């Protein structure tokens, strides 16, 4: 393991809003090809953490080393340029374009062709877009209007978009929220296989513990902004503190609640 490079190194990350500590002194590392889950009850600080890693939010203190660079204060688009793919809790795609075009836009950006006023986007990196769509199992839907897709398909499309810049790290905020149970497993299986194959590190948050325990190599547990446990699924499962505050009835409730809100 020691030969595998560290993709992400977080040290003492903190953020508070008006006296409330949303995240306090969180530190962890993520290595290439590793799938790391960030879990915790609602309001534990997962999203705040994610937003800081992604550049949407400024930490009060702490360091973030992404792929060897200090990224605190950088905009999301700059972080993306470093090789970080991102999916959102509620999918963010371009509903007025076709599925293929959604991916092509990301490829255009990756190829630094955003200010090309004259070329044809339809012809730009068409095969590459098709390949990415095939990879996530959306090849048959390439010419469909994105606005017509079912939610599960949108999630898969988002994954294809996130893979367009040949990322070395994927940040996925509740990748399976709002999906049917069978779809969840499928999507995460797909993500895991891509990650292993291409040696991409994955950091994801998740409410569905089946998904977490099946796919995560390691798990971080957040509660009230602090990291309370870290380890393999078995270690976390056996941690009495985690069981006490997180793995009780709240989980079932949370998952249902989230499903309702996400749809």
């Amino acid at each position: 393991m020691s030969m595998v490079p560290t993709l992400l190194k977080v040290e003492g990350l903190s953020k508070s809003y008006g006296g409330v500590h949303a995240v306090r002194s969180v530190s962890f590392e993520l290595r290439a090809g590793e799938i790391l889950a960030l879990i915790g009850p609602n309001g534990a600080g997962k999203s705040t953490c994610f937003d800081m890693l992604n550049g949407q939010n400024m930490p009060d203190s702490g360091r973030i080393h992404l792929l060897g660079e200090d990224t605190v204060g950088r905009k999301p688009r700059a972080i993306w340029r470093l090789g970080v793919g991102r999916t959102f809790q509620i999918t963010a795609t371009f509903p007025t374009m076709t599925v293929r075009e959604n991916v092509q836009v990301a490829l255009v950006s990756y190829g630094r062709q955003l200010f090309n006023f004259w070329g044809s986007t339809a012809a730009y990196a068409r095969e590459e877009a098709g390949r990415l769509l095939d990879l996530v199992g959306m090849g048959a839907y390439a010419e469909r209007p994105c606005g017509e897709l079912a939610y599960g398909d949108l999630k898969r499309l988002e994954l294809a978009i996130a893979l367009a810049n040949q990322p070395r790290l994927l940040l996925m905020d509740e990748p399976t929220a709002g999906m049917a149970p069978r779809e969840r497993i499928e999507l995460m299986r797909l993500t895991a296989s891509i990650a292993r194959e291409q040696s991409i590190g994955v950091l994801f948050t998740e409410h569905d513990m089946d998904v977490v325990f099946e796919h995560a190599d390691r798990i971080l547990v957040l509660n009230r902004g602090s990291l309370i446990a870290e380890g393999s699924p078995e270690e976390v499962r056996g941690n009495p503190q985690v069981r006490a505050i997180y793995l009780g009835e709240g989980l079932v409730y949370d998952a249902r609640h989230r499903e309702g809100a996400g749809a």
Partner: protein
Amino acid sequence: MAFYFVQFLTGLASAASLFLVASGLSIIFGVTRIVNFAHGAFYMLGAYVAFTLTERFSGALGFWGGIVVAALIVAIIGVLVEMVLLRRIYHAPELFQLLATFGLTLMVQDIVVMIWGPDDLLGRRAPGFKGAVDFFGQNIPSYDLFLIALCPIVLGILWLLFQRTRWGVLVRAATQDRDMVAALGVNQKWLFTSVFALGVFLAALGGALQIPRDAVHHALDLRIIVEVFVVVVIGGLGSIIGAFVAAVLVSELNAFGILIFPKISIILVFLVMAVVLIVRPWGLFGKPEAAARRTPGLTVTPWRPLTSGERLMSLGALVLAAMMPLFAGNYALTVGSEIAIFVIFAASLHFLMSVGGLASFGHAAYFGLGAYGVAFLAKAAGLPMIVSLLLGPVLGLLGAAIFGFFAVQLSGVYFAMLTLAFAQIVWSIAFQWVEVTGGDNGILGVWPERWAASPANFYWLSLGITALVVTVLRVMVFSPFGFALRATRDSPLRSEAIGINGKRVQWTAFVISGTVAGIGGALFAYLKGSVFPDSVGISLSVDALVMVLLGGVETVSGAVIGAIVFKAANIWLVSQTDLSKLVLGGFIVLMVVAFPKGIVGTLETIRNRRRSADTKSALATSRIEVAE
């Protein structure tokens, strides 16, 4: 000292009427998201109806009763408008309701002249408030004091209504999140209707209360509507308190401003708005707008380039249009040139508005700058026509680069209003800087050189440039840049997350759009042989919006068709009838109801429906679950 106090009170009295109208507009916008252009028309109707009632019924009861009844009558008219017209188009693309209310406004202008005659009408003075109160040698009209007192009372009543009644709670909830109210199972229809009625009532009351101070005439609506919009935006959309503070702020700045700069009134409100929006992008009391949720299923047809068959047909149509000089007379050719120029103008706004999702309410600024650019180069510098035509639009480019930089920091209605403010600032420079621009008397004698002077040659020139510009813009729509622009429009979150610098992309689009508008303006200057501040005016900006909306804001070629239909109808109607506003307004209202997606949008929908029926597509609509 007494003078300054009285000047302050006078400012407050001016603020009172502004506040009444502005609060109504703010409430309507807050809940229904309708940019109600007809608000000024309701204000004017309130004044006219109150005039009739107060003339008919004498005494104090007749007067005050007349004022209130007038506001009620107009509110009922408002309810009818909402039920018959607006309800049909709530689900139309954003801003489409603006088009409908604009049509209504045009109609009302002619209708009031038909009913009440063309003369300015002088209403009664308010019984008991005819005189003035002496304040250390300064006279304060007692009616001003009445208005000053009324203003906080109305504010208080509205506050109670919104804080203490179930209806008020619903309205506030709807202002914050429309979808939530729908989810609560509230009858949204009647909530909208009642809100619209209240807003119209306040507008009409504001108008009715003006009759002791003002003359009643058919231009009252335009006099107030823009100013009221500005007040609402300065205060923050949907905020009643904001409207109140903004009305007072604007009125007081005017009252004291004219003591130092007597010519400030003409531009003051726009300067204030520009400053406020740059410093506080959501107005003084507004909250950041929640990202607009696109209605799912509305735009599921992605844009596509022309097929080769369509390209051929377009080319054929262009050739046909180019053959017009063979059979048409000089007048027809000049009209043809004018329509072609407006196609350029509409296409330029379309690029910003449809592709970029940025609806500019001040697009005439760049059209006018192009026209003035040509006038300066041709008249002052004496440059040849070709050079002027090429360099004139540079002024539009520069204007767009400067104003666009600030404007793209905002979005939605705030973007629209900041562009309006910039356009008004340009307009007032054109209007006031008489030594350079000739003021409202304009710059004359900007005629084309001999080679382009004949109507046929000028028509070919205009048509050629139009075809070129439309083609280039279209290519850009489907270029990587066009996709980046659309991506920014569709999902700012996602586009940022794939490395797109949205503000830079939008700014670039703004500059492109402004430059193209400038090309239209440059041609327009040569077509008319002169340039007037009108070319920068609000009504031209509104025309551009109407053309894009009429054609279909969610289509690629809507602007072209919208411009042709609107401009041809406009020129023809103005030539044929003095009631052109009534007919044109009626035409627009009918189009809105018949083609809620615009002309091209509706045609595309029909074609798609046919196509999918043909192929018996298995693509069930039930698959559309969630778009975003």
